[in-house]
């Protein structure tokens, strides 16, 4: 009996032990787990930390950083070398057919909406818009900012936002537009009905920036009042608001100054515009800063890294990759007669073409063109026999990847000097072609020419003549012409001023030619041709000329499609993302 009790007791103990042990496991589980499961993010900041002066300024700097793109795609270049210059016929892709072949459709006006590079341009600029909106929203929500700082920072953000929208509207025209007040959830539902909303916001942003920004900035990378004014005037011009444009340009020419306080002026030496040691000069109205040693070549004109002569070795800059070769026609346009360009298109006639070494082996003899040329040809185009900055004389075919495919020329603007290698270039990535030269989104020569255009359209041919001649006069300063090593001029340069414009159409022809001679390769041409309504005729003529001069593989069969090719397609991926629901949000541009 006793035994039984003991057994019973042991059994009880057993069951108790087991129950206690098992229960305790479960009980343990409920306590103190929440804290254990709280693990915060590392290496990041919460939104609350960004509302201070330093925080807002940091986000503003982030918005500035979007000026040269965000995703490191070359189509995001502020210079629009692909979508502005290549598409504008000033240059072709260069190199060979397979290399970076997604540029091929751009140069042939065969855009594919699914093309990822265009999507990156779209994404990069909208990221800029988004960052600018963040700045403005943070300022509105912050209670700790000094009023003066808040005003300035908001104006800077508005200027940037206006610029990003401007870039978008000139590529895609029909874009969704929203400001910082649109709720995040509604942003993706904003339709792309037309360009009207974009222009309205661009004007109001730039007007606000023009009013609120200081004339000078202690940090020269920041935009100032006159940059905003210039961009606003340019926006007027794009909308054909010539009266407003004319008035504002006149004010800018009279009073404009750089963030450093220098009155706007043309530099004496055309080459100084493309010289990192001269950055933030008096001709720079709105530019994108570049620097070395920043930890990323995305701050050092990464978008131009391919745009150097090919296979130069240590004799030349970059060493890679032979992209962005100026077109035959671009060269021909520099032909002058009595110092003036051939405005009737005859520069492409066989007799007037600039002689090139197309088809001439590097080792074979070649005599350069002896005819009259605008001296700006040798600041703009690398061609055989002419000193290539302070490198060697351009050796012709030896520096061209596939001459038969892409022609004989090399790019020359925005190329760094031999003397600057390593001191004004960033050597930390795969090629040497990362320069610290600023890209100038608006330079004063552009302001003068845009002002001239506004004057022509306002009936003031004489006013336009003076401005155009001001630009030509600088180019005519023979002190700075490209020289051979013996000090003689590298070619037979001849440039003179226009004496008068007989008619509006003469003035217009001169102005349009002057823009490409002065600003060639700086990303403006395609958008100029489109807003002038002459893209089809000009670009078909360009294509025909290139084929006639030999670039058959590249351009054979290509043509500009009027009513379609003026605009880039809305990236298909964006259409797919926003149109997934019941409602159509984005409508594709005509023809795509």
């Amino acid at each position, binding site marked *: 009996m006793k035994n039984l009790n003991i057994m019973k007791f042991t059994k009880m103990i*057993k069951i108790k*032990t087991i129950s206690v042990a*098992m229960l305790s*496991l479960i009980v*343990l*589980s409920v306590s103190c*787990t929440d804290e*254990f*499961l*709280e*693990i915060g*993010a*590392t*290496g*990041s900041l919460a*939104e609350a930390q960004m509302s201070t002066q330093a*925080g807002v300024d*940091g986000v503003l*700097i982030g918005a*500035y*950083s979007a000026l040269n793109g*965000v995703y490191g795609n070359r189509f995001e270049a502020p210079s629009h070398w692909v979508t502005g210059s290549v598409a504008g016929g000033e240059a072709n892709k260069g190199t060979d*057919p*397979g290399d970076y072949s*997604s540029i*091929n459709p751009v140069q*042939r006006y*065969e855009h594919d909406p699914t093309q*990822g590079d265009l999507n990156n341009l*779209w994404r990069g600029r*909208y*990221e800029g818009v*988004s960052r600018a909106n*963040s700045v403005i929203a943070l300022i509105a929500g912050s209670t700790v900012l000094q009023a003066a700082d808040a005003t300035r920072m908001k104006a800077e953000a508005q200027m940037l936002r206006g610029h990003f929208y401007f870039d978008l509207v000139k590529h895609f025209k029909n874009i969704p537009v929203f400001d910082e007040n649109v709720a995040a959830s509604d*942003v*993706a539902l*904003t339709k792309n009905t037309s360009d009207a909303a974009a222009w309205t916001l661009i004007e109001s942003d730039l007007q606000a920036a023009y009013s609120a920004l200081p004339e000078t900035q202690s940090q*020269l*990378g920041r935009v100032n009042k006159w940059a905003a004014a210039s961009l606003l005037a340019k926006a007027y011009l794009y909308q054909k608001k010539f009266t407003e444009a004319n008035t504002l340009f006149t004010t800018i020419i009279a009073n404009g100054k750089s963030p*450093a306080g220098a009155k706007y002026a043309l530099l004496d030496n055309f080459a100084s515009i493309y010289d990192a040691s001269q*950055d933030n000069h008096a001709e720079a109205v709105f530019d994108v*800063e570049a*620097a*070395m040693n920043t930890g990323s070549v995305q*701050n050092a004109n990464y978008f131009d890294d391919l745009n150097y002569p090919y*296979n130069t070795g240590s004799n030349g800059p970059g060493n890679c990759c032979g992209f962005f070769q100026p077109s035959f026609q671009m060269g021909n346009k520099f032909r002058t007669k009595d110092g003036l360009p051939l405005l009737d298109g005859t520069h492409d006639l066989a007799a007037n073409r600039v002689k090139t070494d197309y*088809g001439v082996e590097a*080792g074979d003899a070649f005599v350069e063109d002896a005819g009259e040329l605008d001296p700006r040809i040798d600041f703009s185009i690398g061609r055989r026999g002419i000193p290539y900055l302070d490198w060697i004389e351009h050796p012709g075919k*030896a520096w061209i990847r596939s001459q038969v495919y892409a022609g004989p020329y090399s790019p020359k603007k925005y190329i760094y000097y031999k003397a600057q290698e390593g001191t004004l270039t960033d050597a930390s990535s795969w*090629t040497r072609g990362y320069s610290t030269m600023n890209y100038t989104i608006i330079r004063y020569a552009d302001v003068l020419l845009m002002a001239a255009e506004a004057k022509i359209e306002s009936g003031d041919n004489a006013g336009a003549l003076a401005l155009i001649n001001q630009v030509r006069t600088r180019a005519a300063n023979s002190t700075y012409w490209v020289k051979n090593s013996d000090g003689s001029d590298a070619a037979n340069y001849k440039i003179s001023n226009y004496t008068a414009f007989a008619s509006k159409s003469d003035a217009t022809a001169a102005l349009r030619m002057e823009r490409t001679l002065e600003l060639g390769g700086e990303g403006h041409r395609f958008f100029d041709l489109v807003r002038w309504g002459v893209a089809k005729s000009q670009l078909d003529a360009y294509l025909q000329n290139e084929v006639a001069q*030999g670039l*058959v*593989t590249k351009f*054979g069969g290509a043509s500009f499609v009027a009513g379609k090719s003026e605009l880039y397609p809305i*990236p*298909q991926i*964006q259409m797919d*993302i926003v*149109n*997934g629901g019941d409602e159509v949000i984005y409508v594709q541009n005509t023809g795509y």
Partner: protein
Amino acid sequence: MQKLMFKATLLLLMIFSVLTYAQTTVSGTVLDSDGNPIPGVTVFISGTSQGTITDFDGNYSIDVETNQILVFSSLGFSTQNFTVGEESSINISLEESTEALDEIIVTGYGTETKRETTGAISTVKAKDLLAIPTGNIEQQFQGRIAGVTVIANGNPGSTSQIRVRGFGSFGGNNPLYIVDGVPVDNIDFLSPNDIASTTVLKDAAAASIYGARAAGGVIVFTTKQGERSAKPTEVTIDFVTGFTDPNVGGAPTQLTPQQLADWTAVAQRNNAAANGTAVQYSHPQYGGTAVATLPDYLYASGVGSGLSASQVNVAAVQALYESDPINTFLIKANKTGTNWYDAITNTAATSRIGIGFQGGSEKGRFYIGIGSYSQDGVILNAKLRRHSVRMNSEYDITPFLSFGENIQATYRENRASGAGNGIASADDESQVLAAYRMATIIPVYDEFGSYASTKAAGFNNGRNPVRILEQNYADDKSYSLSAFGNMYLDFHPIENFNIRTSIGGSVSNYYYTDYGYRYLGDSEPQNSDNFGEGSGTNIGWTFTNIATYKRSFGSHSAKLLVGLEALNTGAGRTLYASGINPFSTDKAYINMNTVSNPVVGSNNYDGVTFYSNFAKLDYNFKEKYYVSGTIRKDGSSRFGTNSRYGTFPAFSAAWRATDEAFLQGVSWLDELKIRGGWGEMGNSNNVDPANQFSLFGQSKSASYYPISGGNNGATAGYYKSRIGNPNAKWETSETTNIGFDATLLGGKLDVIIDVWTKKTKDLLYQIPLAATTGNSAAAPSVNIATMSNSGIDMQFIHRGTVRSGTIGYEITVNASTLKNEITALAPGITYFGGSTYRNISPIRNAVGQSLSAFYTYKTDGYFDNAAEVSAHASQPGAGIGRFKYVDSDGDNSITPADRQFTGSPVPDFTGGVNLNLRYENWSFSTYLYTSLGAEIFNQSKWYTGLFGSFEGAGKSALALTSWNPTTLDNSGGPIWESASNLSTNGAANDWYIEDGSYLRIQNISLGYDFDRSKLERVGIKDLRIGVSANNIATFTKYTGQDPSIGGVDTNFGVDVGNYPVTPSYMLTINIRK
């Protein structure tokens, strides 16, 4: 330290605690019911710790006293006792137990017998893991487990793509590995010699005890332990040595120098015809005439490219070389052609040695394993080294309390050599691809012994891959030092009740250096000499407490397990730095202080914590009806408080039908168990730990700006880097499994078949955000998509003997089917894309398709003439000899909308056949693997099969079958020309897609076991010597190098120069003492 000393002493004591005893000797043979000898039978004296094991011929010999009881036991046979009388010879016949069923299987947090299992569980024999030396055990699963898909490549140390029952998620589908109870993300540190058992838990019924982390399946490894007996310490030595052949003969054929020159002229003619112009023969090497001639010199510094012998003054170039050696080259044409694949590969040595000590006493047991593995890759300078020491021990502190530990220290060195470090990055442009992009006329070295490269004009921008491999990789170091293991206490105060508390984890450190040298002989030389180095440290831990209780009452028996677990997947820091242009490239000189432009970075992370409770109840009635239920609740720091916890239940049942009376008389059916299970498992691998937070970040590339206007340095800027979703929760995979295990024909045939489905819901998916919302902010993962997987897993094992038992055989066939389908993404979203390769985007992950399906234009042959071009729908770039795309939407215009789904890289069927034969002392085995129904997007054809892609570079023999007016639509590729557009090399189309099915003879091996009687004289028990040949033949229609192509889950099956699996030959020596 004291603890360590104690442990060491303990171990030493165990090793030497070998008792001796001396009586009469009894010997005999143990046979099976067919009269075949059974090797490896444990023979021990009951009530003592003495024992032995039968040799290969079933012979044993043991010292024993009269009336002692000998116990004969062996896995798969029923145990027999024999009371010793006066006899000196005792021959025993063992019955096959029905009762492979008593085989112990290690499952989640415990063990069960095969009889008890109700879920879908497979095991891999430990010896199978040893068959082919590989750097990563998982590769050995290929074809050995039904339901497990393994895609492996030949790169030493690479991680395979291993998927248990398909793909449940858009990423993070790796199975959960459990090593001695501790979860780990990868198992590359494990030495196969140390593994005792491997169990794959495939369905929820088996795996959901691991709850939130089980959706990708669970693979449980148990490392070796000694035995609790006083048998002498057993020493095993496993030694393998051999070599891998790069299989140069199997490499795709490249154009010879003359062919490439001729075909360059062909292309120029074709270009002219396409453009309607006169032919321009122009190439820097082959001259300006219709008949291409090969130059004598490809390049001479100071002279140029494409030179005849008479144009080159060798002495002058030599003089130039003396003054400027790094920038002077004299490259002679290799007119016979360089085999670049041969040049970048070599025959590579492999060796593996594993030494194991195992033993024990009644109170404890131990295992010590020392392993060393060394494998060189066939690609120059690829290598893997792994050295490990493992100590496992267990000791009874008191009769009711034992302490045990498993610990392994590992040194691992892996140099990837430019061919992708893992199958996950198989789509990298590798040095294998680079080899095919070099024109064959370029020699490996120039006349001065420098590397010859594309400084010679006309060959595009390739870089000499031999130089890259020899210069840039030879100096690289990458190694890790890690310790992994756990310690546990088992408390068992009363019978059938046990509490185990265990703390385990890993500590690891890694370091790497990376050298890259500028080389002016390339057409696009890298800008500078660069040097990088980095290191990191990681600590992860797991704390587990489990209580189990078993109870039988009458015909009922039940087993209850409850547990709680807390873990951190790993917190740590990384540090990296790089810089350029040190004054000297002397390695002894280079460090971060001697380079220019040093850039440093670091990272810290706090890991992800989990807190979990779980319980499992198993019940059976008369060992005939089984039911089992599991539930686990997990909480994780990965999710916000709103939905931090997930609960994962599973139920399963089994019926041993053969125990029913009505099946007792069926003589051919020995055992039939029908199983069914349902359950849910979770996954959270594919979501960022910061997913719940909205954050701002900074990036040197994307948010810094030189705001001061200077040319040096930039100011930090910030941007919205993440949009948080505090409501994200677990992905849940719901599985159902119905199957049966049958043993037939007197134990000679086992059949295991499982039919399963796995449906994942609440799949975490980053809905792509419109660019207008600011694409630099990472989109939050939201629980929105669904995916389904289904398949049938089959295993057949047939064993038996022929010729009256002299030849024994066992043949195992594993087969599984898999159907994977994305069933929903998000409202309004029907697909998301994959990577783009040189503007070719072949992949679309779309609803109704498998992961990573190929979505391309479909070709309808080529345009054979101008009439076809004009009759066809308008197609950008259309031209004679170019791809003709199907106008699938019938709008008479070829647009992106005409693309179709044209293939899937997910194999429909994978399987393996394993055959073992035994004749006297000889044993033979072979092992085949097959993968059927997967397609491969052969992106390497873009580089080498189309003239216009990197014109001038090396091209393949596809040129010879390219479109021409004779072969028309039967041509091997489009017309040979420069044009680059949608109709040539500008779009993904089905020309690149090939059947990736293959059958591979993975292993053939032959072994000889020496007679034990002879070995005794030299003091060893077993000696086996074998030879094997691995991967000796692959049968496939795939034209690329190797059809085993992996990648990440949403982006795989694209061959951009995959590291091939090539044959290897091994000698094996196994010694047991």
